[in-house]
């Protein structure tokens, strides 16, 4: 994990001194990381249930409204906690 991550950090300029970033490559790399993240959220919701779906939807909503990942994470986790306590 450490080596793979280090490689992605250090190799950017080395690669770019040989190739140029084409729109296709930029589109691919940009979509790659957000695709992983969306896929993970979709998997959690598919394996879970309404508690998971509600927490995730609230977190996304707070992010869109408040532009703060910290508040979004707190809101989603609080929703999940209350759901567990109130509904089991």
């Amino acid at each position, binding site marked *: *994990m*450490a080596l*793979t*991550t280090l490689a*992605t*950090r*250090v*190799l*950017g*300029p080395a*690669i*770019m*001194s040989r190739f140029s*970033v084409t*729109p*296709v*490559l*930029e*589109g*691919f*790399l*940009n*979509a*790659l*990381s*957000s*695709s*992983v*993240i*969306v*896929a*993970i*959220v*979709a*998997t*959690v*919701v*598919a*394996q879970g249930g309404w508690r*998971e779906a509600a927490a*995730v*939807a*609230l*977190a*996304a*909503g*707070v*992010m*869109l409204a408040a532009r703060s990942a*910290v508040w*979004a*994470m707190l*809101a*989603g*986790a609080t*929703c*999940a*906690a*209350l759901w*567990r306590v109130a509904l089991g």
Partner: protein
Amino acid sequence: MLDGRGVRAGFLRLAPVGVFAAPFGLAFGAAAVEHGLLPLETLIMSATVFAGAAQFAVLDLWSHPLPLLSIALTVLAVNARHLLLGAALSPWVNALPWPRRLLALPLLSDANFADSYRSLREGGGDGVANLGVLVGGGLALWLAWTAGTALGAYAGSGLGDLGRFGIDLVMACFFAAVAAGDLKTPSSLLPAAVAAAVAVLALEAVPAGWNIILAALAGASVGALTGRLRPGR
């Protein structure tokens, strides 16, 4: 150039941002221990990897024996964006002598990239573009991330059922927030929708973690196509 003055400036500028990175570290530490990692393993992972999204992403894959290939591919996919950040910094990085090029980038992440890129393009406060700002900012974030992880990993394990505190869903909520922040432009919606659909459809069909890798490749391919179709770029 890259010198101590830049490192100091970057560190001081991003120290306040570090205050916000620490709670993420705490959440990661608690979540990792819940997924069966030892506190020490969790701390070593944060100190050496220093990439929150990738670290959260591998927790679901953490079973013994470790699925090393899935873990490596997932980390590669989540962190591939670093290549773009590094590419944007290449005019300044490639101007450094060789050993210093390697010093400049190991702590590259989104926040210190955004801060130092602006400062580099403006030529710094005194007209000197200094990559030390990137290193110093990274150092501030790394300290906060590692300290937060330590607190979550060692204190979080004494709390019992973490579902009561919603900690089992901190990762999913964090990712939902990141995804919502990413989906600003219409062109990013289609890859995301394809990725979500592939992830859910493949869930039962492939070994754990591979549905994420398939979804990432599908979403990224759609992203490459829409990148090609985007006019004027």
